[in-house]
């Protein structure tokens, strides 16, 4: 058996529906059609009452999921693209995120955000919104980079009693494959050393893990051993694992695909310098997208996001310091 990142997401939803009759799926075109990316393909056939097509109403979609969760259901909401969650933003940050704290009643919903850029998708079908949601208390933000994590973390998200923003990366959907799925995954909130090394640490997540590993492989040729830490969860952030890595390497580069102001990379760097300043032998660096909307044309798009090439260049700069 071999399956893709996208298939893992489908399988996890299948498994979630199978395990727990309280789970249901809600989203645009997810029923008979199986979703814009086919992440729910055939699931309505298997669970006819628990895979529901919604109107184009992101605000109500989240509101419905919240209400359903209050009555004991376990909704998984698919946003057709992460970008459209902007229309459900208010319900996510003000209703879902505050609910447990205000009322003592938890709000277990999972919101799937097909995230990140692919060539030719443009400013409104390419966004990475993890940094926006992570700013708000009361949300858990997961950003799987591997097929295995896509599967196990989605199942974990559904069983967690809190609202989870599940940022799955569209660029990984089809070409990231695994031969099989391990029985269990790492716990939520734990980072993973994607590639061990000792000269510098790259902290990253989601699709950028693969760009960073590529850059690290490239630097290996020159004898540099770069450690790549895959955050897996951007809220909570596993500061222990990051600090342990920086303690080994003394150098830190943070890479994210989102916009450069604030967000995950700034949060990681701030955490590291607060608690691990003495571990650093060089100024910690960030690499994010450029500070413009995400371009449509692939020529521009490739220059807009971090790639193995400029990650490698940033690393060389860092190592020279």
């Amino acid at each position, binding site marked *: 058996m071999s399956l893709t990142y996208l298939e893992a997401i489908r399988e996890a939803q299948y498994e979630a529906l199978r395990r727990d*009759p*309280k789970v*249901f799926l809600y989203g645009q075109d997810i029923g008979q059609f199986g979703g814009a990316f086919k992440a729910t393909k055939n699931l309505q056939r298997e669970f006819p*009452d*628990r895979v529901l097509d*919604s*109107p184009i*109403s*992101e*605000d*109500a*979609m*989240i*509101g*419905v*999921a*919240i*209400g*359903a*969760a*209050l*009555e*004991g*259901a376990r*909704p998984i909401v698919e946003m057709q693209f992460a970008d459209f969650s902007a229309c459900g933003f*208010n*319900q996510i940050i*003000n*209703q879902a*995120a*505050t*609910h*447990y*704290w*205000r*009322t*003592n*009643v*938890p709000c277990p919903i999972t919101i799937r955000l097909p995230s990140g850029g692919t060539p030719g998708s443009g400013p409104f079908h390419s966004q990475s919104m993890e940094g926006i949601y992570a700013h708000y*208390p*009361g949300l*858990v933000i997961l950003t799987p980079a591997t097929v295995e994590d896509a599967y196990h973390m989605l199942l974990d998200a559904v069983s*967690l*009693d*809190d609202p989870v923003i599940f940022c799955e990366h569209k660029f990984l959907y089809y070409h990231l494959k695994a031969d099989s799925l391990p029985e269990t995954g790492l*716990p*939520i*909130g*734990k980072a993973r050393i994607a590639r061990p090394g000792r000269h510098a640490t790259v902290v990253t997540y989601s699709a950028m893990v693969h760009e960073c590993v590529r850059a690290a492989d490239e630097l290996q040729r020159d004898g540099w051993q770069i450690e790549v830490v895959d955050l897996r969860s951007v809220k*909570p*952030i*596993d*500061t*222990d694992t990051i600090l342990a890595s920086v303690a080994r390497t003394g150098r830190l580069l943070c890479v994210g695909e989102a916009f450069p102001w604030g967000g995950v990379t700034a949060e990681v760097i701030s955490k590291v310098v607060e608690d691990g300043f003495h571990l650093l032998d060089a100024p910690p660096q960030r690499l994010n997208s450029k500070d413009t909307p995400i371009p449509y044309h692939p020529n521009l798009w490739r220059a807009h996001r971090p790639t193995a090439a400029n990650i490698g260049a940033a690393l060389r700069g860092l190592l020279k310091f």
Partner: protein
Amino acid sequence: MAAPQTITFTEQDATDDFRQQYLVTYRHMLSARLLEDRLAALYRSGGKIVGGVYLGRGQEAYSAALGVQLKKGKDIYAGLIRDQAGRMAFGEIMLDTTRTYLGSALGPMRGRDGNIHRGRPKEGMPAMISHLGTMVSVVTGMLLARRLQGTLGDTVGATCIGDGATSTGSFHEGINTAAVEKLPLVISVANNQFAYSTPTTRQYACDDLVERAVGYGIEGYSVDGTDLAASLTVFRLAVKRAREGQGPQMIVGTLLRLSGHGEHDDASYIPPTMRKTALARDCVTVAEEFIQTQSWLSTAKLKEMRDEVRHEVDDAFSQASHEPAPDPYKEPWRALSSWKQLEGDTNEA
């Protein structure tokens, strides 16, 4: 879809059962009025009340007439800003109100949220957030979950909204979703002529908001919201039809807010002429007069009821005012219910 109807009360509706419901509802109205009068007085005297005070004065009949149709423990009732009366009619206890306003740590919100934002979601009373319109889809989702889990039965979910909030996208999306799912949602619009200071002419351009019902493919009713008899009649009908599976029901009650938006507001923008129209009738007085005209209760009995309620209000305030305020040092400051599980895994929540 049939055209919206205007519902009035006719003498034939005055069954024994109706009389009983009328009197029960009147008592809730009175409770809300006396409780809120006290809140207003406390607010004005300063110091005791934490935050703002938003009253339902003038809307008690319309509000309670819905709450009284529903069963706590079975149905759902999501009251909004001006639904003190409806909440009480549904079964919210007075202490929940006084504790929340006085900032007792023992109230349902434990000082974390306040005034009208209180609720007990596990008892069918969701706790509204401020963002208007957003509770419509939440109640819709509660009903949907019941249907999926096979527990819907003949339960209904009610939610309330003002004229102003009908302009929100959230209202539109929520009601449309409920219509598509044909869920037993009762949506009560209290058209009190103003959204804060904004008159309805700056809020919508149709003649009556009930005209929206047809466009959603749901049943709609208009009613004089100052008239308890008519309000009971319309909500009886609407709740019954929702229970029977006729899908969402939209009721638009016409009335006037007889207070400021909050107690900080003198509502001087309400034209004096409007205060002289039938819209400005005080529904509590109207109901009391109706009771007397029908000879349902004597003046003595009415006074007795008023005294009883006053005592209940006294008790609720006095108890809450002796309770401790929330203590920041005892507050765990955790926004996630699973924080222990997650902190076990890593070093922060």
